[in-house]
């Protein structure tokens, strides 16, 4: 099975040095989405102002998928 690397960047780089074997692109998409959701849930501190990015790369180093989150906060004028 081909191996994919799920690198995360959020307030610093968190490269995946181990990788995960996955059978096909559907599995990559599904695993990345689940993992991104789980990582988002665990974020310690505010998401506002910093972009959370996951870049999935194959064994040849080619990017196959990107997922990103960003939160922007509004401060409406008090009447």
């Amino acid at each position, binding site marked *: 099975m081909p191996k994919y690397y799920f690198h995360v960047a959020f307030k610093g780089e968190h490269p*995946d*040095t181990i990788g995960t074997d996955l059978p096909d692109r559907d599995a990559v998409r599904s695993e990345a989405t689940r993992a991104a959701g789980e990582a988002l849930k*665990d974020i310690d501190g505010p998401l506002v102002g910093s972009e959370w990015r996951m870049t999935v790369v194959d064994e040849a180093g080619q990017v196959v998928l990107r997922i990103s989150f960003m939160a922007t906060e509004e401060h409406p004028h008090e009447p």
Partner: protein
Amino acid sequence: MSHDLGPVRLLVRKLQGYDELSRAEVVALARTVSSVRTVGTDQDIVAQGERPGYSSLLVEGWAARYKLLKDGARQITAIHVPGDFVDLHGFLLHELDHGVVALCDCRIAMAPHERLRGITEQHPHLGRLLWFNTLVDASIHREWLVAIGRMAAVNALAHLICEIHTRLEAIGLTDGPRFDFPITQVEVADALGLSNVHVNRSSQELRARNLIRWTSGMIEILDVDQLKAFAQFDPLYLYQTREPR
């Protein structure tokens, strides 16, 4: 005449961590075993929905209780190490609501339910200890529920590692902070209810924090106190204290 204590050796050691056992009780436990069989890696020890008529005691190797969803997703609901019954509750429940799979090659001692019934009738204190054993299984489920439900993955992973280390230490299967850990990362993910990718990242974070070394089949805790604090690990729920039961 004398039954080999061999298959129940670690069960006896485990139970002696909870209360004193008399010589007669140790002999009675040894006599519950009718035979020993081997089960290969990834084979079911018992299947969900089965009514085996006996309970299985792990002599060597590790196992996991699990349930499957229709899409093939698997949740591991408990991890068992040598000295554990994987389905003692089956003695009273009869039909199992979960499967049990061998995580590596296992030797299993089979305890027919009629022999366990004999224990409850002739050795009531020992019967209470078997009941106690299932209560600790339930306590571990509750602790897992809290970890899976409310902890960040990296802390839940740390907690699982602390728990396994503490359980193995009680039966003499650790080498200080080092222990065999024949569980794959995918199986850990199935136990924590997480994707393999996120467990992968969490394990890399524990390494980066110099808390653990995790190489194929082995874990070494590099800072036991720090890992326990990081995991909010309080071993109370394992009930490893000797008191009259």
